[in-house]
């Protein structure tokens, strides 16, 4: 089930370079006072090996659903205004943005907490994978195993 997108949030998977400025501008409402952004981009090394480039792939329909769920969670947990989560797929060069998150809010604490919760949760639960390309080969990056239900709920025996 996909969480509905309301609050004018923007949740996207893109294949072109991410340009943050036009994305962030619409988050700014007159009743807001703070925007916190997180820009995650490609580092030139991983575990002390020089990275050439990265390639991101996603289970796109599920990734979008999980990103929308994160946005919906943020609105439940924090007094915020709008959420923007954009993740890029495909080949990314050093320094290019892979994920950009922005949260607007009347006050800064909620904007910080929500932005951080968003990226932490995205990294644990959104089905996106990156392959790291080095001089001497490529590896799928170590990642985190998302939490999944251990067993389907069953009717309890009557007591």
């Amino acid at each position, binding site marked *: 089930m996909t969480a509905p997108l309301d609050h004018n949030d923007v949740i996207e998977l893109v294949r072109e370079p991410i340009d943050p400025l036009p994305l962030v501008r619409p988050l700014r409402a007159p009743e807001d006072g703070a925007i916190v952004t997180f820009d995650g981009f490609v580092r030139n090394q991983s575990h002390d090996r020089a990275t050439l480039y990265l390639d991101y792939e996603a289970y796109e329909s599920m990734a979008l659903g999980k990103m929308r769920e994160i946005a919906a969670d943020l609105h439940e947990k924090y007094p915020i205004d709008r959420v923007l989560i954009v993740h890029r797929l495909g080949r990314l060069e050093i320094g290019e943005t*892979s994920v950009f998150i922005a949260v607007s809010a009347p006050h800064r604490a909620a904007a910080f907490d929500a932005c951080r919760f968003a990226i932490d949760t995205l990294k644990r639960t959104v*089905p996106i*994978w*990156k392959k790291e390309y080095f001089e001497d080969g490529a590896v799928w990056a170590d*990642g985190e*195993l*998302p939490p999944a239900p251990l*067993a*389907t709920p069953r009717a309890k025996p009557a007591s």
Partner: protein
Amino acid sequence: MPPVSQTVRVKVLFFGRLKDVVRQSEESLYLSDASTIEQLFALYAGRIPELAKYRSSVVASRNQEFAAWDTLLRTGDEVAFLPPVSGG
């Protein structure tokens, strides 16, 4: 052993390193009526023995939601096997 009853049609997806191991990303297939996600994975592990060693570092989804291994599959389900995620 009776033949598979072929009453449940599912779509199966593999991602990341699992896709490399299975050498395909997507397949539709028919399963016996009472198959679980666990049994579906075992079916592939029977074909591709290397897959079995990933079992403990895989989560499954059904229809774009994380799902328990004992989930019973129904016709039309989309099942995906997902290695540890590394977005961001």
